[in-house]
């Protein structure tokens, strides 16, 4: 096929291959156009959303809809919609940047995100020609607002356990839907809902349901912990009459739509978390410079600086991960040519399902860490609603829950790997076998002459640790591994940290090779990689101890020790340097 295809990195391949930095997309690779799109989003948010934050937080839906229209005029709703349906059809990096910058306006970003993401994308990817023509141009401008209705009171993570039923009417002209959908974002004002229901209680399928169809209503507004500027209600379907042509995709294939849309939802969520982290860091640093105790700004104190450095590093690592995945998705889509149908596009994105889950878990937990430390830096004021830290703290929490809880996503990671291995898409088992041989001999040493040699060595060892403990677990439990959720979650955490380390290292090396100033990046990698490496060792030890005991365990631990030797760095000093740069700039520093 084309040369483009040869350059593609396969999903999850990073676990068994060395990924060359030049193959990794990084924020330093943003084009001028990307930057301008980010800037327009920033201006829109600062000019239109932020000044209205208070009204939005008090659920002025009319204003929310007005702002969505304005966003539509600027093209901020049209990024993922193809040009033939009045969209812009820009790349996923552009659309990710819009998502990232939108979060600076608080939870209005959720109204925007639900509309352009899970609301609109099922029609983009799975709608037929008539459905796309009818709905997409209106969704591109914001004339109509979209929502997505999958969850039910009785089915959250177990999405396929939905109880909503669709039955064909006697005249064969309508699907009659009955059931209740729960926690539906944008439900107060959405015009179009993508609704999942089981045809005859069996075939899980998706439908496009308009608000004005008979039998469609919404419940009362939920009183949420955070993201209050977004609307969340039940969608109630009582003999709702949905024209037969509004079945989305094939009957009984709703799960294909649901899972594909979740993949996209996940990487978009991760990108949103990056924006949230940068926003929180900015207010935290500014506050730390203003707030004086013991006759000096608290930013002068090393323990505050340590927090600032940690927050900046988390944001950097997450940003490196999510734009790497987004870049991979773009390359995959690019390789398929200009006019690909939606299903092919969704399939291309599915290639990186593992990366989407990895990003989702990491980003949501990184954001929670960052907002928690933001509250801490604000001290007592962090607990008071007049200051921004309090809202950020509450708003962040939902990210670990929706788009698949982090627990579900952790389980998805090893499951996806095993599936890829079984289908022969990933030579995981071969790699694990190869490792057995390698472990008998002498392991490679750190190459001090290389750029970031020590960190690259730790990354290589981390991959071996994963193969070692993962391989042992598969051997021991075989088919029953599924029941060992604790071990699976530990394996997922190792995968996540490997992707995190590698993304940060690759981004830094790429910047250095391009002759860019990468001093701060190098410092961050030198801090982060050993910290992650120690965590990986911990997860591995926990897995081994759960599987073996006595001599067998001691032997396994001896192997692990062989893989985990490293020389610690003076991270105290490095963090002070990183913090100094962030404090000077008063914002996130890559």
């Amino acid at each position, binding site marked *: 096929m084309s040369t483009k295809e040869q350059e593609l990195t396969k999903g999850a391949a990073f676990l068994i291959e060395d990924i060359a930095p030049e193959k990794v997309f990084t924020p330093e690779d943003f084009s*001028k156009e990307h930057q*301008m*799109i980010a800037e327009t989003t920033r201006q*829109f948010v600062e000019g239109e959303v932020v000044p209205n934050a208070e009204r939005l937080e008090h659920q002025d839906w009319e204003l929310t809809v007005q702002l969505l229209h304005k966003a539509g*005029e*600027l093209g901020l709703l049209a*990024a993922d919609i193809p040009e033939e349906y009045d969209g*812009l059809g820009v790349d996923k990096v552009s659309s990710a940047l819009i998502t990232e910058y939108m979060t600076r306006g608080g939870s209005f970003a959720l109204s925007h995100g639900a509309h352009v993401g899970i609301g609109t994308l099922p029609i983009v990817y799975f709608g037929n020609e008539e459905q796309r023509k009818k709905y997409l141009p209106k969704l591109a401008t914001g004339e109509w607002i979209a929502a997505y209705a999958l969850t039910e009171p009785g089915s959250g993570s177990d999405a396929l356990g939905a109880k909503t039923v669709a039955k064909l009417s006697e005249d064969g002209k309508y699907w009659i839907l009955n059931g209740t959908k729960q926690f539906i974002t944008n439900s107060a004002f959405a015009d179009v809902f993508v609704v999942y229901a089981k045809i005859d209680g069996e075939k899980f399928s998706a439908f496009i349901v308009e608000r004005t169809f008979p039998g469609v209503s919404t419940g009362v507004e939920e009183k949420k912990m955070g993201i209050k500027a977004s609307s969340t209600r039940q969608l109630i379907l009582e003999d709702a009459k949905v024209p037969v042509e509004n079945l989305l995709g094939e009957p009984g294939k709703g799960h294909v739509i649901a899972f594909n849309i979740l993949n996209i939802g996940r990487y978009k969520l991760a990108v949103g978390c990056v924006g949230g982290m940068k926003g929180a860091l900015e207010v935290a640093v500014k506050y730390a410079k203003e707030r004086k105790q013991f006759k000096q700004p608290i930013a002068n104190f090393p323990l505050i600086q340590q927090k600032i450095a940690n927050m900046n590093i988390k944001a950097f690592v997450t940003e490196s991960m999510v734009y790497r995945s987004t870049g991979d998705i773009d390359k995959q889509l690019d390789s398929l040519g200009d006019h690909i149908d939606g299903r092919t596009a969704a399939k291309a994105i599915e290639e990186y399902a593992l990366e989407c889950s990895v990003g989702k878990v990491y980003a949501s937990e990184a954001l929670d860490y960052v907002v928690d430390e933001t509250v801490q830096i604000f001290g007592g004021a962090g607990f008071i609603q007049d200051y921004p830290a309090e809202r950020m703290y509450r708003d962040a929490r939902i990210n670990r829950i929706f788009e698949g809880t982090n627990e579900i996503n952790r389980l998805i990671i090893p499951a996806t790997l095993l599936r890829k291995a079984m289908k022969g898409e990933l030579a995981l088992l071969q790699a694990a076998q190869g490792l057995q041989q390698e472990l008998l001999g002498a392991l490679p040493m750190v190459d001090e002459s290389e750029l970031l040699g020590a960190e690259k060595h730790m990354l290589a060892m981390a991959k071996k640790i994963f193969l070692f403990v993962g391989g042992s677990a598969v051997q021991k439990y075989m088919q029953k591994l599924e029941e060992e959720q604790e071990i699976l979650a530990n394996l997922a955490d190792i995968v996540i940290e490997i992707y995190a380390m590698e993304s940060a290292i690759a981004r830094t090396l790429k910047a250095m090779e391009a002759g860019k100033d990468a001093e701060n990046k190098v410092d961050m990698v030198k801090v982060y990689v050993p910290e992650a490496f120690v965590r990986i060792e911990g997860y591995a030890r926990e897995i081994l101890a759960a599987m073996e005991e006595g001599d067998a365990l001691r032997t396994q631990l001896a192997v692990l020790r062989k893989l985990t030797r490293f020389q610690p760095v003076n991270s105290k000093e490095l963090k002070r340097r990183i913090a100094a740069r962030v404090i000077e700039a008063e914002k996130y520093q890559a």
Partner: protein
Amino acid sequence: MNILVCLKQTFDTEERIVIENGKIKEDGVKFVINPYDEYAVEEAIRLRDDLGGQVTVITVGPERAEEALRTALAMGADEAILADDPALFGDEYTAAKVLAAIVKQREFDLIIAGNQAVDDGSGQVAVRLAEELGIPHVSTLTKLEVNGNQVVAHRDAEGDEEIVEASLPLLVTAQQGLNEPRYPSLIGIRKANKKPLTKVTLADLGLSLEDIEARTEITETFLPAPKTAGQILSGDLADQVKELVSALKTKDKVVG
């Protein structure tokens, strides 16, 4: 109607100024279209949309200034000219000479520029350009109406409003309040990449270095002294006055 807009790329107004080795540090700084020039771009686009014609944006500045031109194109301008030849850089005198040379190669009815740049704030370049071209100018506009060849311009005259009538060709400068500049839309951004952007050099403009040699020299660049704490005088009123007068004379030397 052919409208030319002169703009300058400046520091974002929220950037902090750092001086290193006697020069303002530009690393990692965010640059924007000078806010007053943004009004000029917006006004030109609105006039073009009403009356037809073409908007050309022009800047003298380093390569990075291309971003400012692209932003103007994304807002809706039709064409851009970038004078990024370092031989063309100098002071306000130089900039006006260079712009005049560019403008003379083109047809125009109206030139719009910002009232001043937020970086050095000289407010000279546009009016010097009018002088070079031998056309009238009206500065600090808050409202502009064009009817055929006739122009009615409302200008901010130190807080008062003056209404001035003039005829084309004309140069005007924009004051805050003239309009609310739009954000470049995504479709505008995509189109901007395909719009023509021409770079010009000293030779292209038929200028020689002597023609445009700067008439001023920057001898020192420094930040304002940090603000020191104020002093509250106390005691008998007459004593306070005495103390104040003496402080004004000796401490700050504001009165001789």
